[in-house]
């Protein structure tokens, strides 16, 4: 029993407006049966300082990643996590977070790997909620545990591995990192030197569209015309029937771009390469291009 979608006119131009809710919608719908609000932040303590009333916390690192292997939790782990948060398979989940929903988009992408159908973003995340006078509480809800089915992850449709990227060369690739990382001037993201690599640069032919360009100053997604200018003709040159792979450093910033391409532009074949630069930039014998130009597909 899905909760009705947000019919705000400003979302109607997007391909899948049902994937976004506004702060007004959320204020009006808090507490609706079937709705679970999830906060997912970069800062692991931000939720504890105050969150939207009734929201549960899911941390990208301590909850969604496998603690040993570099991979996501498995179907059993996901079922346990969601059940413990009071989320059923048919719950409407609205995710929000810090940094323009960067981590919220990442959580939404992981939910999608498990085929959770109704998962939406709060447009603008924490910043917009605060700007619109939204309330916070430090009271942590204790949801009644529910049964969430064990559904195995489907990595075949929206997730790309390194070998998939090699086979994909010649098709559109979007590098959503900062220009400095793309050019190869640095092996780490600005302010993230702990996630370094052995080599710097970008995957041959990748176009550099830093993820944050899709967000407006207030944290909400930019209007469709501006997004089209970024990613379609005149920008990255992506066409409707293209298969596209987006990547960044560990796959979080590119989840944000994956959301834009898939749900706002409506492209049907977009994958996120979560290994991203921390894998590619340390892998043996993969092609790399340095400098501001995308470069050509290697011939061998």
């Amino acid at each position: 029993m899905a909760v009705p979608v947000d019919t705000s006119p400003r979302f109607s131009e997007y391909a899948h407006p049902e994937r976004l809710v506004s702060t007004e919608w959320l204020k009006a719908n808090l507490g609706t049966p079937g709705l679970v609000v999830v906060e997912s932040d970069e800062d692991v303590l931000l939720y504890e300082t105050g969150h939207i009333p009734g929201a549960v916390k899911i941390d990208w690192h301590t909850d969604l990643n496998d603690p040993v292997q570099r991979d996501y939790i498995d179907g059993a782990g996901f079922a346990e996590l969601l059940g413990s948060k009071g989320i059923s398979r048919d719950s409407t989940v609205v995710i929000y977070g810090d940094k323009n929903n960067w981590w919220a988009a990442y959580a939404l992408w992981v939910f999608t790997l498990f085929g959770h159908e109704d998962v939406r973003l709060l447009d603008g995340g924490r910043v917009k909620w605060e700007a619109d006078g939204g309330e916070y509480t430090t009271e942590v809800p204790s949801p009644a545990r529910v049964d969430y089915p064990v559904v195995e992850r489907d990595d075949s449709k929206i997730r790309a591995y390194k070998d998939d990227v090699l086979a994909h060369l010649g098709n559109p690739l979007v590098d959503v990192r900062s220009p400095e990382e793309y050019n190869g001037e640095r092996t780490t993201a600005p302010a993230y030197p702990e996630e370094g690599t052995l080599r710097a640069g970008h995957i041959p032919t990748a176009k550099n569209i830093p993820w944050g360009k899709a967000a407006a100053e207030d944290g909400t997604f930019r209007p469709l015309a501006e997004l089209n200018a970024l990613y379609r003709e005149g920008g990255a040159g992506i066409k409707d029937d293209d298969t596209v792979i987006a990547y960044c450093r560990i796959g979080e910033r590119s989840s944000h771009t994956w959301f834009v391409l898939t749900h706002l532009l409506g492209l049907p074949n977009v994958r996120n390469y979560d290994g991203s630069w921390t894998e590619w930039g340390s892998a043996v014998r993969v092609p790399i291009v340095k400098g501001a130009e995308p470069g050509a597909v290697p011939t061998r």
Partner: protein
Amino acid sequence: MTDYQLPESLAQIREDFLALEQRDRLLLLLEFSNELPELPARYADHPDLLEQVVECQSPVFIFVEVDDADRVHLHATAPKEAPTTRGFASILAQGLSGLTVEEVLAVPDDFPDTIGLTEAVSPLRIRGMTALLGRTKRQVREKTAA
């Protein structure tokens, strides 16, 4: 160095964290975060004196003072949207302040890994605190190198 003893202030902080369940360790970190003092006015007006710790995921700036009695004082500032980083800075500010130069320099570089927070905040994030400690010790060395 088998007979090395952590200064009382740091040992107490470590003991307090280790006595708690994982979830409560986060709440203690939040307490530290809330206790991070405002910068003394003389630094608030001089951002040029502060050093940014670029290893942290959020903007955090530190300034180390060594007083006439060779005691170390650590000042730090980080935005309220970055409570984890504030918490790390606050632990070090409280744990190191008032120690002698020699005591600060002797603090093991892996102290942040030993206070039971690695699992609660993730190993990746704890590295921000390691960097804070490293930069603090470097500033102490620079300021006493005369």
